[in-house]
C-alpha cells in the first residue's frame, strides 16, 4: 500500500447508493475506491447466511423503486440481477376472514366487492388519483432538485421545469395534490373507502419505516413513496430480487469492478480529512490515511456531519441542521428459517395470496394503537408487520421444501425504557412471532431459526442512525430541495470536493439507486467529465 496514491474518488459505504455512485464514476473513467466498514458489502441491501443453508434478505426485502434506467445503464441483468414480480398479498382479519390482492382485475374487483360493493367502484377513482401523483413524482426521481434560493440559470430552469410539471396538473388536481402532501393516510383513504379491512390494507405502506401513525399528517405521501415503483412498467408492483436483496448490491459491485473500480471491506472510515475547506481523503479506523480528489459519503446526513466530519471543518448551520435532521428509528425486522410452509387456514387451499405481502392489521384503529405504543417507547404489542416468503418462487434462498420468511415490523422503539438488552430484543421478537402464530397454527412447529433485529442491531451493523431505513424521515420538510437540508440538496457537501449520495439526499430511501446516480451526475459535471448517468425513461 502506498500512502501517496491519490484516488480520483473515494466512496464511503458499499450500500446500493454508494455502489451505484461508484459505478457511474468508474464508468466515466475515474479511479474509484469504495470503503466498507463491514466484512460484507451491501449495507441494508444484503443477503446473508446466518443459518446453515438459508439466505436472509436481512434488511430491505423487496424491490420496486430501484430505477430501471440504472439497471439498464449499468447492465445489471448481465451482472446477475433478476427481479421477479410478486403475486398476491393479503390482510388477515381477526374474525377469520381476509382481504386478498389479486393481479387479475376482475378477480380483484370481486374480492373488494365481497367487503364493500362501493369500494370496488371507488378503487378506480383511488388508483387514478394516486397515479396522478405517482406520475408527477416519478419524473423528479432521476433529477437533481433545483435550489430555489439561488438565481443560477440552471436552478432557475430546473425550478421552471418543476413548476411546469405541477402546472400540467389541472387547477383542481393542484389543490388536491397539496392536500395529498399534507394529509394523513387515514383521512385520505377515508375519502375513498368504507371497509375497515380495505382501509387498513391500503394504509400499511404509509407507515413503513416512518415514525408516524396512520392518523399523522404527512403519511399520505409515504404511501406514494411505496406506490411509485414498478416492475417492468407495472406501477405499484413489487418484486423479489432472485437470491435476496444482496443480489442488487452484488450486481452493482460487479458492474463497478467491471469498470475498473475497487472495493475494500473491513475498512471503516473514522474521518473525512479536510484541509483549507477541501476534502483531501479519509482516515480509517486502523489509522491508515487514504487520499482522494473527491470524497463521497454514502452515510446518512447525521453520521456524515456529526460522526466522520469535524464541526471545526463545517459551517455551524450544517452541524445544527444535521443535529435536527429527523431520522427516527421506528422499525424492526425478523428473518426466519422455516422447515416447511406455514399454514394459513383462513385462506382457501391453494390460494395464491401467500405469494405476496402478508399483513395482520385489519383496522385503522389497531394501526394507530400500534403507533401509540411506539410514542411511549414501547414496541407495539399488536404490531403492523409486512411479511413475505420469497422462497415460494426463489429456489436459491433455502433448501428445497424449506422456506425463508422476512417480517418487517412497525413499530419498534429506538430505545425502550431502560435501554435494549438481548432479553428485551427476544421479547420483541416473541411478540411478532406470537402474532404470526395466531394466524398460522403450525408456525412454531416449522420455525427453525429467527434473526431478530431492533433499531439497535440495525444501527450497529448497517450504520443506519437509529435504524431508520430511509436515512431520514420522508416528510415534506425533508424532501426535494430540502433533503437533507435547504441549500445542500444538490449532493455537494459544505466543503469542496466532498459529496453526499445516501438516501438522506433526494429522492430518499427505498433501494432506488437514484441518490447515487444523481450525485454521480453532479460530480461528473463538476469534473467536466461526460455524464454516464441515465435520463428518466419518462412515463409517456
Amino acid at each position: 500500500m502506498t500512502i501517496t496514491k491519490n484516488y480520483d474518488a473515494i466512496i464511503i459505504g458499499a450500500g446500493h447508493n454508494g455502489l451505484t455512485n461508484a459505478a457511474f464514476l468508474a464508468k466515466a473513467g475515474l479511479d474509484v475506491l469504495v470503503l466498507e466498514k463491514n466484512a460484507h458489502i451491501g449495507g441494508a441491501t444484503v443477503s446473508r447466511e446466518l443459518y446453515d443453508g438459508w439466505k436472509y434478505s436481512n434488511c430491505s426485502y423487496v424491490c420496486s423503486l430501484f430505477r430501471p434506467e440504472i439497471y439498464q445503464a449499468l447492465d445489471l441483468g448481465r451482472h446477475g440481477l433478476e427481479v421477479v414480480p410478486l403475486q398476491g398479498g393479503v390482510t388477515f382479519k381477526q374474525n377469520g376472514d381476509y382481504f386478498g390482492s389479486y393481479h387479475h382485475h376482475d378477480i380483484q374487483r370481486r374480492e373488494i366487492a365481497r367487503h364493500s360493493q362501493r369500494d370496488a367502484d371507488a378503487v378506480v377513482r383511488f388508483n387514478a388519483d394516486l397515479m396522478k401523483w405517482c406520475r408527477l413524482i416519478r419524473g423528479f426521481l432521476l433529477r437533481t432538485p433545483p435550489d430555489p434560493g439561488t438565481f443560477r440559470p440552471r436552478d432557475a430552469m430546473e425550478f421552471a421545469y418543476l413548476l411546469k410539471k405541477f402546472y400540467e396538473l389541472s387547477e383542481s388536481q393542484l389543490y388536491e395534490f397539496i392536500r395529498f402532501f399534507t394529509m394523513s393516510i387515514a383521512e385520505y383513504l377515508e375519502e375513498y373507502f368504507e371497509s375497515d379491512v380495505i382501509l387498513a390494507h391500503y394504509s400499511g405502506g404509509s407507515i413503513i419505516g416512518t415514525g408516524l401513525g396512520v392518523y399523522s399528517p404527512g403519511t399520505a405521501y409515504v404511501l406514494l413513496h411505496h406506490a411509485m415503483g414498478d416492475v417492468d412498467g407495472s406501477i405499484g408492483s413489487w418484486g423479489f430480487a432472485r437470491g435476496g436483496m444482496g443480489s442488487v448490491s452484488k450486481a452493482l459491485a460487479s458492474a463497478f469492478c467491471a469498470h475498473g473500480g475497487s472495493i475494500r471491506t473491513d475498512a471503516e472510515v473514522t474521518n473525512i480529512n479536510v484541509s483549507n475547506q477541501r476534502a483531501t481523503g479519509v482516515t480509517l479506523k486502523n489509522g491508515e490515511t487514504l487520499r482522494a480528489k473527491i470524497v463521497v459519503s454514502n452515510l446518512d446526513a447525521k453520521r456524515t456531519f456529526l460522526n466522520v466530519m469535524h464541526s471545526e471543518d463545517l459551517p455551524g448551520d450544517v452541524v445544527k441542521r444535521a443535529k435536527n435532521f429527523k431520522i427516527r428509528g421506528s422499525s424492526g425486522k425478523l428473518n426466519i428459517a422455516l422447515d416447511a410452509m406455514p399454514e394459513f387456514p383462513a385462506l382457501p387451499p391453494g390460494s395464491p395470496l401467500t405469494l405476496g405481502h402478508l399483513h395482520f392489521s385489519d383496522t385503522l384503529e389497531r394501526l394507530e394503537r400500534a403507533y401509540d405504543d411506539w410514542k411511549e417507547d414501547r414496541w407495539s404489542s399488536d404490531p403492523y408487520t409486512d411479511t413475505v416468503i420469497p422462497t415460494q418462487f426463489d429456489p436459491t434462498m433455502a433448501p428445497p421444501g424449506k422456506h425463508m420468511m422476512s417480517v418487517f415490523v412497525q413499530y419498534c422503539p429506538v430505545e425502550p425504557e431502560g435501554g435494549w438488552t438481548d432479553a428485551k430484543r427476544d421479547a420483541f421478537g416473541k411478540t411478532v412471532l406470537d402474532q404470526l402464530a395466531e394466524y398460522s397454527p403450525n408456525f412454531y412447529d416449522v420455525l427453525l431459526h429467527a434473526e431478530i433485529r431492533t433499531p439497535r442491531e440495525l444501527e450497529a451493523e448497517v450504520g443506519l442512525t437509529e435504524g431508520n431505513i430511509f436515512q431520514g424521515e420522508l416528510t415534506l420538510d425533508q424532501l426535494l430541495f430540502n433533503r437533507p437540508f435547504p441549500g445542500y440538496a444538490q449532493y455537494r457537501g459544505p466543503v469542496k470536493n466532498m459529496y453526499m449520495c445516501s438516501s438522506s439526499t433526494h429522492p430518499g430511501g427505498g433501494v432506488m439507486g437514484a441518490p447515487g446516480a444523481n450525485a454521480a451526475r453532479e460530480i461528473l459535471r463538476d469534473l467536466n467529465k461526460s455524464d454516464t448517468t441515465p435520463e428518466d425513461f419518462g412515463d409517456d
Partner: protein
Amino acid sequence: MSDHNYLSTHEPSPFDSGIRAQSQTENWTGWNGYLSPRIADTLASEYFAIRSSCSVMDLTPMEKYRITGPDATAFLNRLVTRDLTKLRVGRVAYVVWCNDEGKVIDDGTVFHLAENDYRLCAQHHQLDWLLLSSIGFDVSIQKETHDIAALSVQGPTSFSALSAAGIKGLETLKPFGILNTNVNGFELTVSRTGFTGDLGYELWAERARADDLWNTLFTLKDTGLFDIRLIGLDALEMVRIEAGFIMPGWDFNTAESTIRADHDRSPFELGLDWIVNFDKPYFTGKSALLAEKARPATRRLLKLTLEGNKPPVGSFIFHGKKGKQTGAVMAQTWSPILKRCLALADVDFIDGHPPNDLWAEIYYQKELKWHVKWARCEIVEGQFWSHPRRRATPPMPF
C-alpha cells in the same frame, strides 16, 4: 363473510348455460366481470342477424342501478345533463353525466319505471359516483346489475319474433317506451331501446326467470322462423359505429379514470350537444360546460367516412395528405351495409372549425407484408346509417 372463488375469473351470467350452448367459437372476452362472446358463430351471420333478421344479446354485464325515493327525480336531474323532469313514467332517455369540470364520467339510459322509481343503466361501474352524488338527497341507490335477467333483441324481425313469442302490446310501443307485461306466466318488462340503431327491444325479468326468458326466445328459434341468433360484441361494435353511438372508455377516456390532464372529454367534444340542457336548474358540470360553450371548439369526436376499403385501425388523422397530424381514430369498422369504412376520430379544430382536408394514414398487412395507404376522410353529420323501421309505430313485420 361470503365465499370468493379465486379460481373463477368471471361471474357467471344467469344465461350462462344457454350462451355456452349457442357459442361455437369459444371466443370470449371479459365485460364488466362477466364472460361475453366476441363472436358466437361467425361475425357476418351475427352482423346480418342485427341488420336483416333478429339478434339476441345478454345484457347482464351492463351496469344497472335502481334509484328510488322522494328525491329520485331531483337527484337524477342534478346528475345528468339532460332535463329529466320531462321524462314521463314508462319512458326511457339516453343520458350522459359529468364531473364538475364538465368532463364525461359515463353515459347510459334512464328508465322511469314508476313514480320515484328509476333504473339507470351505465357502461361502467358507477356506485361510487352515484353515492357521492347522492349526498343531501333522500334517495336509495341499489346496484342490481346481477339481479336482473336482461336480453337485447334487435333487428328487423324482432317485433314479429317477440310477438310470436307471445308478447302482446308491442304494436303500440313507441321508441324509448316501456311495456310491462306477462308472458308464459312470468312478469316481463319490455323497452323499445337498443344499441344498434335498428328496430329492437330490451327485455327485463327477475333473475330467477332467466331460463324462462331465454327459452321464450330460443324455443322460437327452434321453429326456424325469424333467424334468431345469439350475437357477440364484435358484431355489436360494427352496428353501433354505423349508428354513430359512442362507447365511454373506448372512444374517449372516462373522467374518473383519467390520470393525465386534458385526456378526458366533455359532452360537446363528443358531439352530445343535443342532450346538454342549460335551461334546467343546476346539474353537475353546468358551469364548466357553459364556459366551454362560450369558447370556440378545440376538438371533436367526428364521424368520418374514408375512401377505399382498408379500415383505419389505430390510424392517425392528418390535415392534408402527409400533412400535420391532427387527430386519431378511436373506433372504426368496415360497414357491410354501406360498403364503406367508417371511423370515429378525435380531431383537433382550428379556430373553432374542423380542418377542411382530413386524411388517414392506414397500415395494413397482406401475407404478413405491411403496406401503407392514405385515405381521404369526409365528415358525416348524424348517423352513418339509419332506417325508418327504427321509429315506425307499429313497426314493420320484417
